[in-house]
């Protein structure tokens, strides 16, 4: 299992830097927002956490089609499905590797973007923490979308359409918890715990559904 994780990570960081593309896209989204809403620093500070969350959400959706596509192209997907290990576990590890390569860099880049958007340090910290808990859920739910569209040559946009409605709860509770940390009367713990629950739940549902899909498409 660690061997698989190492292999996946090696591929993710080697081939064209999928991680870097995600962060660049994140940067592009963050830069575009002030042009749309104006350079008012107070306004930006208020909606900053939301911008960061939306940017990270879109950036994590962007790379999802690579989750299984590469394995399918070189034929190793069949091997992965055939192997004696538990398929959902294998998929969970693939998701972990994918998240380490694409999700984690987004979180590491967040403080920089937070400064650009005039988000106060507490807010940036809260965004990082909620992203740390929330983005794995996006990857895990996205694995279903990736598995379902794996036979399509250009499934990326379709994955986004299919997955976006399903990750709305993650966005809602991520933002709510962030705002809870910044503004005093709003609760932080409750939405944050629900966010954790969502991630754990997707950790079961995502790999199971993706495994069912991949196994079916193999026979």
């Amino acid at each position, binding site marked *: 299992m660690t061997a698989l994780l190492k292999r996946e990570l090696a591929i993710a960081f080697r081939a064209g830097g999928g991680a870097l593309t995600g962060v660049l896209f994140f940067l592009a989204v963050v830069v575009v927002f002030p042009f749309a809403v104006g350079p008012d620093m107070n306004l930006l500070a208020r909606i900053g956490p939301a911008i960061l969350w939306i940017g990270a959400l879109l950036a994590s959706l962007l790379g999802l089609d690579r989750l299984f596509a590469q394995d399918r192209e070189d034929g190793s997907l069949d091997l992965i499905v055939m192997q004696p290990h538990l398929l959902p576990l294998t998929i969970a590890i693939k998701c972990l590797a994918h998240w380490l390569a694409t999700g984690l860099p987004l979180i590491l880049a967040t403080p920089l973007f937070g400064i650009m958007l005039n988000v106060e340090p507490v807010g940036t910290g809260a965004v990082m923490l909620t992203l740390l808990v929330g983005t794995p859920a996006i990857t895990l*739910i996205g694995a279903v979308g990736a598995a*379902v*569209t794996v036979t399509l040559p250009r499934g990326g946009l379709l994955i986004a359409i299919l997955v976006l*409605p*399903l990750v709305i*709860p993650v966005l809602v509770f991520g933002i709510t918890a962030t705002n809870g940390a910044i503004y005093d009367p709003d609760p932080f713990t409750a939405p944050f715990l629900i966010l954790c629950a969502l991630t754990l739940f997707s950790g079961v549902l995502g790999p199971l559904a993706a495994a*069912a899909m991949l196994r079916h498409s193999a026979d």
Partner: protein
Amino acid sequence: MTRQSAEISQPAGFWAWLASLANPTRFMGIADRVIPWLAALSVALLVAGLYMCFTAPEDYQQGATVLIMFIHVPAAWLAMMCYSVMSISALGTLVWRHPLSDVSLRAAAPIGAAFTFISLVTGSLWGKPMWGTYWVWDARLTSVLVLFIIYLGIMALARAIEEPAQAAKSLAVITLVGFVNIPIIKFSVDWWNTLHQPASVSRFGRPAMDAAFLYPLLVMALAYTLIFFTLHLMNMRSEILKRRIRVMKLKAAEGVR
């Protein structure tokens, strides 16, 4: 014809009957006979329901706009029922591998999207005089909007995948994942709504419904349901023909080669 009906009435029970429907030709035969009756019944109920709607008294609070409720509430109800039908079909594809369940799922998706659309449009037309705006980010409206996007996503997926067996499984998996997620989405939207909702909207929450409105609403709901099943059967019939055409064209291509 007589042979078919004899087979259906065998004492083997409902499940055997359901399994016997696996034969598309037999299904087509049954559908051809059932559809005219179902269509006639739904039109009759619709006429009766509309008559009851327009003779119902005006609501003391909503005024004549209660007329919109009679077509809005059943549509919203069907939007959810259709997704349940699709989810059962998805189970049929994945668990029992019933060949008609994929036909049923595909045939239901556009109908569900249409009823969701109706419920959104009539809802916002009701909201304008009642709430003062066509659209509010109210928990119910937002959840239905998300459901609409899910329907459209499923339809887009159905169109995108060419290979039938692959498409069937993809649609079934994504439909079921959506089904599991819908309560969570509803919950999160409710949560989000209680934090952000200006209190003005909630005061329009309707009290227990008077019988004068309940009966027209029930008849309309029944009419809508029958319309749904009529259209669903019709679309399933059409979907089976599409598959036959595909097989025939493949055969023709082989013959040329």
